[in-house]
């Protein structure tokens, strides 16, 4: 089926070349980091994780969220999702690949990465994260590819695949729960030390991931004559808004606990993030942007008329995606490290090469997604007759 990714329209190739050039820039930045060290990033002794780990955490959520389209289709036999299930599975493949790359570029000694396998350490949560992520990658690749290949051949997927599909469904939440455990079990990092971390992670994941699928599906409808199905889009957008409201609630619960209890150490990170402390308010604009986006998202997606309109649906989903990204990308890591164990503030600001590497990894993920989606769509549309006439799709 890979050959389907090798032929495409001019627009397809321009997009691929665009991604490749960003990957190239990111790769050059990485070579620089590889040579000089992680000192080229904005990370410091006090804020020792930054943009890379933040994006890793966010993308684990995106990967896990594939389950929101796979589960209704296979478990509840919700046929409407038949056309977008593969989008979910391949999105997971791209997202997990990005996760692995983000962890890799964050290592001080990348050449020693296999030490994790040589000296297995079952007391470290990282040990379990490695296991759940790599198995999840393999499961999605296996399930997505096999089902698609069966469709390509015009048959039903083989029955031996069923257990793997169910396993992938059960496995999906585990990757984000384990990732939350990386944070929520650390003494002394009060912003992270909360039992609601894992549910909050899942809620934000199950809104931002499906939001991305909605955006991409609407985009594919425009550029690739792919019809995801009206009903499917409606159901998916409902999933997005329910999960998003849960996520916002979970966040508010944390704020309640911190401020009603009056416990100083539980409040300081929130204070730093939203209003700033000791003349430092580097991240306040980003946090408030996340809040405003959240309000827009809830307005656009909770009101049925706006949710059913494709333009406001797309805008609402974009707002969900960036609101969640800001909460995890900007807030989570910086909030965990600030204030420092000495109750001082060391500001963190990503540097240009750091952003370059980050964009390079994202572009790699998008390239994988583009190629896999191209194959999937070609296979799906090869069996049907679709005509676009005066901007309207006609399907037989």
């Amino acid at each position, binding site marked *: 089926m890979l050959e389907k990714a090798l032929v495409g329209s001019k627009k397809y190739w321009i997009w691929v070349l665009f991604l490749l050039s960003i990957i190239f820039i990111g790769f050059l930045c990485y070579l620089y980091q590889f040579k*000089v*060290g*992680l*000192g080229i990033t904005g*990370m*410091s*002794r*006090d804020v*020792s*994780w930054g943009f890379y780990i933040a994006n890793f955490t966010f993308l684990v959520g995106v990967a896990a969220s594939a389950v929101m389209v796979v589960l209704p289709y296979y478990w509840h036999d919700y046929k409407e999702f038949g056309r977008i299930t593969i989008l979910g599975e391949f999105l997971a493949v791209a997202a997990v690949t990005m996760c692995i790359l983000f*962890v890799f570029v*964050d*290592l*001080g*000694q*990348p050449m*020693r*990465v296999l*030490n*994790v*396998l*040589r*000296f*297995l*350490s079952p*007391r*470290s*949560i*990282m*040990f379990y994260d*490695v296991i759940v992520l790599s198995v999840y990658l393999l499961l999605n690749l296996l399930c997505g590819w096999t089902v698609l290949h069966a469709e390509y051949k015009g048959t039903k997927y083989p029955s031996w695949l069923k257990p793997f599909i169910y396993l992938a469904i059960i496995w999906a939440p585990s990757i984000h729960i384990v990732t939350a455990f*990386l*944070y929520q079990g*650390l*003494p*002394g*990092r009060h912003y992270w030390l909360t039992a609601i971390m894992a549910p909050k992670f899942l809620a934000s994941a199950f809104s931002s991931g499906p939001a991305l699928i909605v955006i991409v599906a609407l985009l594919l409808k425009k550029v690739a004559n792919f019809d995801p199905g009206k009903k499917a889009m409606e159901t998916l957008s409902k999933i997005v808004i329910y999960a998003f409201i849960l996520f916002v609630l979970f966040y508010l619960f944390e704020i309640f606990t911190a401020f009603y209890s009056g416990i*100083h*150490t539980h409040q300081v990170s929130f204070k730093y993030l939203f209003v700033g402390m000791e003349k430092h308010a580097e991240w306040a604009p980003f946090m408030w942007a996340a809040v405003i986006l959240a309000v827009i998202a809830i307005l656009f997606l909770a009101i049925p008329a706006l949710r059913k309109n494709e333009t406001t649906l797309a805008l609402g989903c974009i707002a969900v995606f960036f609101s969640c990204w800001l909460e995890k990308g900007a807030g989570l890591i910086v909030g*965990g*490290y600030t204030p*420092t*164990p*000495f*109750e*001082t503030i*060391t500001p963190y600001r990503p540097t240009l090469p750091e952003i370059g590497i980050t964009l390079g990894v994202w572009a790699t993920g998008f390239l994988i997604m583009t190629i896999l989606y191209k194959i999937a769509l070609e296979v799906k549309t090869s069996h049907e007759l679709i005509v676009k006439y005066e901007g309207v799709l006609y399907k037989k």
Partner: protein
Amino acid sequence: MAIKRRSFLKLTGLTLLGSTLSTIIGNLLTRGEVKAKGYTQSPEALVGKRWVMVIDVKKCKEGRSTCGAKCIEACHTLHNVPLISDIKKEIKWIWEDTFEHAFPEQTEKYLEELFHGTPFLLLCNHCDNPPCVRVCPTKATFKNEEGIVMMDFHRCIGCRFCMAACPFGARSFNWFDPRPYIKKVNPEYPTRMKGVVEKCLFCYERLAQGKLPVCVEACPEKALIFGDLADENSEVNKILRERVALRRKAELGTKPSVFYLMS
């Protein structure tokens, strides 16, 4: 007979799978540890079950105007700790800070006034229940039999999970190659490379030679006392029985091994 592509691929796959599995199983059985051949401590070695340090804050303050922080200098010179002026990228094994920074949870105004201008020496607490050891994905940091939280600089992959886990900010990371920042290299002790974490190791290498940690030895005021907490008759036990001592963030349950005599 020519081997078919299909069977060749099958064989290759099986071989790969087999060797991976055997490595994993082997690792699980030995818990990834390489058994050292039995070794004997040299006769002059100081041997303990749980090394701790007691810092006499009052003595430290009294001598601070004249001592020139010899403890810090001695440690950093001996252990090839680079001198990096950028505080975001700096590396330190032992350093001094204020009361508010050392004990941020003690927000009592009078305490802060009482200890205003008092230096507090901060270093790795060598916790009895160390979170950094728990989180390390390669066992590059581990607790040895004498209670010292150790670092294997050659095994560390630089993931900095330990830095996230340490509630005391005791760990430093080599953001760059540290060697250009070392004024005079001490050939007796290894230098580190970029991309690994480092911290105070309670001078385990000196204990093995029967010497006290270099900071303890360097202090002209004798404000640092080192000893074995497991030994009922040790000096540290005697002092801790008699005087008021605090440990940093004891409420977190990490059981630090550095005590601050406050009276």
